[in-house]
């Protein structure tokens, strides 16, 4: 019999009941909660007179709606100016209090984007099943966990039963061999994979990322990669546990210590695919072939290397692709054949659950140091992923580098990734963004998003247009 994949093992370990109709009851170890997708679930519990199955499996934190400007944040929940947002954050506080669920409140130093906070606090551990009412829950797979987004009905289901009714996915291996060129990051790998397999390429699959490039990524980089599995259509992406994982987890607030750590570590040694495991689909890329990536359209698969040119829809054979490309080019205000490096930018956003961790901020600061943002730029926002990331960045003096360069240094939250708070693009504005989705209107109605790595976003902020990070010279002091 063939060996098991990492996904097979995680599935097997959490299987409560296999049903004859092909569905299965899967046990959930960790449920992360935020303010947008939970109010209706708590209301459902109330209406049915149900209580959470297990309190200690849950951790809540507000992130999507929270303002990121210092003055608006100073007033806490009551200080949120948008009254609809304020009510939603207040409702999370109220529900957590009523149902006795642990919540990290708005101005706690641990507050931040739920997918930054979970691993940072050790609330996400290897071998867990992790769910959250947010599609970027795939992020947590970086720790060797089975992690995916769920809808609000399932949020209620997990709260009430500690389980989910699931159908097993197929296995896909994405192997990135070799090594990356200097200046090329996990974000570029993620975008290159999506460009290669398409935004529906992973539909129906659980992706495992492997290969030398993945092994050599830091945990922050691995989280960036798994985060964007959903943009490749896969609900979950995961990476085998190794020393990098263990070093990251050890000592975190909710992580085990002492004898419990030793036992956990021993159990986690099995969290990798067996050598003879069989995958339903295998995709391989060479790290050396991956250049810094920039998206030009309104789907993450509409991506090119920075030295590329906006494609000509007329040259596309597939009618659906052709009309999608035509529409995207019009929406984005580009012309076929235009060099990616000729795209002029209005704003730059460095943040989101994809790229707001300390390593991302260090990479951006390294580019910005001693330079100033282009005078044509309206705004360059740097939004740390959590209060702890912010504190760490400030301890390293990164905020001073950003501020000296003319960038804004904000309070933690989802911010301009989806523009549910006050941080948004105006119509027609081009933005170099380290977030995950370039959909029409995502960052503001009529806004034009280009997805890039933090270093590429920083370089674009300085130049006012995209530049190849590999060609960037050290600033003359």
């Amino acid at each position, binding site marked *: 019999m063939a060996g098991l994949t990492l996904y097979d093992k995680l599935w097997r370990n959490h299987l*409560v*009941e296999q049903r004859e*109709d*092909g*569905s299965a*009851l899967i*046990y959930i170890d960790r449920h992360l909660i935020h303010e947008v997708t939970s*109010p*209706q679930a708590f*209301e459902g519990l109330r209406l*049915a007179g149900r209580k959470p199955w297990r309190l*200690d499996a*849950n951790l809540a934190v507000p992130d999507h*709606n929270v303002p990121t400007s210092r003055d608006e944040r100073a007033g806490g929940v009551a200080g949120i100016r948008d009254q*609809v947002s304020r*009510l*939603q954050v207040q*409702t999370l506080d109220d529900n957590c209090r009523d149902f*006795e*669920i*642990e919540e990290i409140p708005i101005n706690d130093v641990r507050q931040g984007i739920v997918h930054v906070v979970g691993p940072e606090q050790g*609330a996400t551990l290897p*071998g867990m099943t992790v769910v959250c009412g947010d599609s970027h*829950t795939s992020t947590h797979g970086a720790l060797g966990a089975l992690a*995916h*987004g*769920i*809808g*609000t*009905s399932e949020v209620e289901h997990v709260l*009430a*039963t*500690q389980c989910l*009714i699931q*159908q097993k996915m197929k296995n896909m291996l994405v192997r990135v061999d070799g090594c990356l060129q200097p200046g090329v990051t996990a974000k570029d790998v993620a975008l290159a994979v999506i460009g290669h397999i398409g*935004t*529906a390429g992973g*539909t*129906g699959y659980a992706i495992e990322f492997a290969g030398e490039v993945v092994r050599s990524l830091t945990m922050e980089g691995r989280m960036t990669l798994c985060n964007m599995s*959903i943009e490749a*259509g*896969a*609900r979950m992406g995961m990476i085998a546990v190794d020393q990098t994982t263990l070093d990251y987890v050890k000592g975190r607030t*909710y*992580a*085990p210590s002492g004898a*419990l750590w030793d*036992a956990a570590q021993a*159990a986690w040694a099995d969290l990798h695919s067996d050598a003879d495991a069989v995958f339903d689909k295998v995709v391989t890329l060479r790290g050396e072939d991956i250049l810094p990536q920039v998206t030009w359209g309104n*789907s993450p698969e509409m991506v090119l290397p920075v030295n590329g040119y906006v494609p000509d829809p007329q040259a596309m054979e597939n009618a*659906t*692709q052709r*009309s*999608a490309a035509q529409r995207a080019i019009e929406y984005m205000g580009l012309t076929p054949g235009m060099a990616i490096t000729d795209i002029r930018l209005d704003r730059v956003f460095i943040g989101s659950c994809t790229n707001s961790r300390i390593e991302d901020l260090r990479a951006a600061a390294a580019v910005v140091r001693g330079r100033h943002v282009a005078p044509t730029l309206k705004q360059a926002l740097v939004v740390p992923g959590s209060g702890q990331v912010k504190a760490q960045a400030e301890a390293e003096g990164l905020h001073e580098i950003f501020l000296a360069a003319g960038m804004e240094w904000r309070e933690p939250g989802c911010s301009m990734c989806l*523009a*549910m708070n006050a941080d948004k693009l105006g119509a027609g504005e081009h933005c170099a963004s380290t977030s995950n*989705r370039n959909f*029409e209107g*995502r960052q503001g*109605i009529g806004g034009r998003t280009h997805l890039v790595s933090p270093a590429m976003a920083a370089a674009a902020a300085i130049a006012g247009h995209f530049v190849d990070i590999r060609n960037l010279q050290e600033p003359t002091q």
Partner: protein
Amino acid sequence: MKSFTVLEGLVAPMDRANVDTDMIIPKQFLKSIKRSGFGPNLFDEMRYLDEGQPGQDCSGRPLNPEFPLNQPRYRGATVLLARENFGCGSSREHAPWALEDYGFRCIIAPSFADIFYNNCFKNGILPVVLPATTVDKLFTALYAEEGYRLAIDLEAQEVRTPDGEVLRFEVDVARKHCLLKGLDDIGVTLESAAAIRQFEDRWREQSPWLFNMIGRGQV
């Protein structure tokens, strides 16, 4: 949840690939703490010419005449014909809530994003996957004939066209069963409460570090 057995209804087109959840229901409407009332904001950015705000009365807003759902011939549609990868993007259940609130009970497409597909079944909406070539033909027939209707029979797993063609579709047994009966998933799962407790006890013994680390039970 509303059950779904047989639906016979008017069909409307959403003729583009990769319709994402931001298009289906833009983020400003996600601030609602309610489950209902999203229908008037379905496809808000494509449907109206102005920028929609949560809580706003949509009846006086300027409509985009180009958008199919604003055309009289598609008024009252309950079936949405769509393209590849419909519902990609976020996990927001507000997307099926908005579709259902508008009146759609069935979406036909060559493929769906996983989370959206799953969310539909929780809200009485049947997502039907048909081959891309078949969907192409349906689009042609739909555009050619005003008042084009389809019958969707979940029990038989069939879509029936006006000219008598029968198109079979696949749907997994568990989801089909729940949708046919309009069952509450939680109620069904709680029938397995003993099995869950048993698993949990064994799992706690095997992996104690996964328990009592957060909240009042903190060790």
